[in-house]
């Protein structure tokens, strides 16, 4: 395994934090899945379960100077960048106490104070924006980097391709993370992406392209660490391609008749949390009881978030016309 060196570089605290973050995303998504089925959550919800190692492996290399842009499948990125899970849950329930006061919903959770420039309802919406935040960081000399997470679907959008070219032309501290979960809605990326790998496209934009096992936190962390260090040092953008599977449908309610058996296989053999736990307990860096304690703590946090969200007030009619410069 190539992760041996990297694992030694991570402290016990960092390992625990990464595990807790991945567990929080999983727990959050499993709960939203269950609660959505009761009919209480309005609108469209796209779950990130299965992909946790990508968000956490990348964002564990970021700090307060850095900005990310996300996708319609954005809960994991929000949590990994430090957005409050109670506010997120309240937003998903459309409550006044939500991250966006109930005006955004699942597809638009944002917290600019945390460097989270928003989940995004438009496929390919984020990459141009992070070229801008990266430009701002470069001009201001903050040392910040910006990361666009996008899916295999968005990898075929002109906005994404234009942004990779612009990031290279302007030599921006930008990282493009293609999360290839195999399907754009129902359509396989083996069909819709004309190149063998999304990462192969990096060559056309003059940047390194790296294929990463997206189920392996350590592989993601190492690849992201190298790319982000290069970007911070003025070495320009990188394209990372995470290969993995999402555990739920495109959206909640998707019967997933376009695939069979993959999720069961991934959950049993490839799961990022299971693999993480096996490695760190094998090396003795963390114990099973450390992980169990983290699991219990996370479960309590998510329980509380759901309870608070359900009890929180809905926006009022007066909120309809706020936060816009003029109302007719």
């Amino acid at each position, binding site marked *: 395994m190539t992760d041996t060196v990297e694992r030694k570089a991570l402290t016990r605290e960092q390992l625990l934090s990464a595990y807790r973050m991945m567990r929080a995303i999983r727990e959050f998504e499993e709960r939203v899945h269950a609660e959505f089925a009761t009919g209480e959550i309005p609108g469209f919800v796209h779950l990130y379960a299965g992909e946790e190692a990508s968000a956490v492996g990348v964002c564990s290399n970021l700090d307060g100077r850095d*900005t990310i*842009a996300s996708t319609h499948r954005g809960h994991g990125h929000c949590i990994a960048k430090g957005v409050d899970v109670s506010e997120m849950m309240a937003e998903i329930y459309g409550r006044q106490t*939500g*991250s*966006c*006061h*109930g*005006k*955004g919903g699942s597809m*638009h959770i*944002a*917290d*600019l*104070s945390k460097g989270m*420039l*928003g989940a*995004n*309802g*438009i496929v390919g*919406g984020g*990459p*141009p*924006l*992070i*070229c*801008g*935040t*990266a*430009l*701002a*960081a470069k*001009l*201001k000399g903050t040392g910040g980097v*910006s990361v666009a997470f996008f899916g295999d679907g968005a990898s075929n959008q*002109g*906005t994404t391709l*234009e*942004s990779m*070219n*612009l990031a290279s*032309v*302007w030599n921006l501290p930008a990282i493009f993370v293609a999360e290839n979960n195999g399907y754009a809605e129902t359509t396989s990326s083996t069909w819709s992406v004309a190149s063998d790998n999304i990462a192969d496209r990096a060559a056309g934009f003059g940047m390194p392209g790296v294929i990463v096992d997206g189920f392996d936190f350590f592989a993601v962390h190492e690849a992201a660490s190298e790319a982000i260090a290069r970007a911070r040092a003025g070495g320009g953008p990188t394209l990372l391609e995470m290969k993995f599977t999402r555990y739920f449908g495109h959206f909640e309610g998707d019967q997933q008749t376009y695939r069979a058996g993959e999720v069961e296989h991934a959950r049993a053999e490839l799961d990022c949390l299971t693999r993480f736990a096996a490695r760190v307990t094998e090396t003795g860096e963390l114990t099973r009881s450390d992980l169990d304690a983290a699991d219990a703590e996370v479960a309590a946090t998510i329980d509380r978030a759901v309870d608070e969200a359900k009890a929180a007030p809905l926006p009022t009619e007066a909120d309809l016309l*706020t*936060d*816009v*410069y*003029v109302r007719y």
Partner: protein
Amino acid sequence: MARTITYREAINEALAQEMERDESVIIMGEDNAGGEGSPGEMDAWGGVLGVTKGLYHKFPGRVLDTPISESAFIGAAIGAATAGMRPVAELMFVDFMGVCFDQIYNQAAKFRYMFGGKAVTPVVIRTMYGAGLRAAAQHSQCLYPLFTHVPGLKVVLPATPYDAKGLMTQAIRDNDPVMFFEHKALYDLAGPVPEESYALPFGEANVVREGGDVTIVALGRMVHTSLEAAEQLAAAGVECEVVDLRTTSPLDEDTVLESVENTGRLVVVDEAHPRCSMATDISALVARKAFGALRAPVEMVTAPHTPVPFSNTLEDIYIPDAQRVANAVKTVAEWTR
């Protein structure tokens, strides 16, 4: 001290003064300096119509050439605006909005509201519009009604060099995304402009000519067409009040309504197509809120509902002219039940 400069120079001066005042102001666009990576001189163009000429050398590192990738660089300007910059991006012709509109109406326009008031996006998108240069169907459109329709965008259309400078200064200082429409036939128009910096507030229409018989509401280049018609009509004894909207979003309803309350007659002159335009919007406004004052049906003078034609003879007919405005004014002035 006011002196006479062109509409182009007035915009350039506003950009320069704001860049001097605030180092977060940056400029980006295709050929906005001109010559990046090329063997000859830098700042070769200053944009295709030279509006940003000279700023590249005056403000090192703050005037950026871009690839022809409107989605990427308009989006980058928007992203940079969320991160503390005040970018002024040039969308060369507004006709090119089709290749970057998502970033404008789904991203920039939505952030403040959709994120619960937690985002500001102080970006200015400068763009060239309008017919008259024989530039044909894909380089001559008005399209400001499309942007005016979208909540969260401010839409500005200066008609004079004085307004161009003051409205650009305000646009840069504003915390919301601003679409700044520059009429390509006005760039060489000269007029008095103070040397010192000043900002004109949005949502304040300008009564550019007073008169008690008929109100003409116009915007952009059509303000000049309307003034020309008003001159002719004055000679015939009809006094027109000409209202320049200056901004379509926010819209100064009060000035329009007050004028119609006085005159009882309205002609709206709009270079855009007739449906879902400022002409229909102002007509509806007056019908709803000044119905009792109206002494004649509202007349609209607009371009026809066709793409902009190329041939001189056709384009000249396409663009509303002073004669058509004068005819419309006569119709409402002479109307009886």
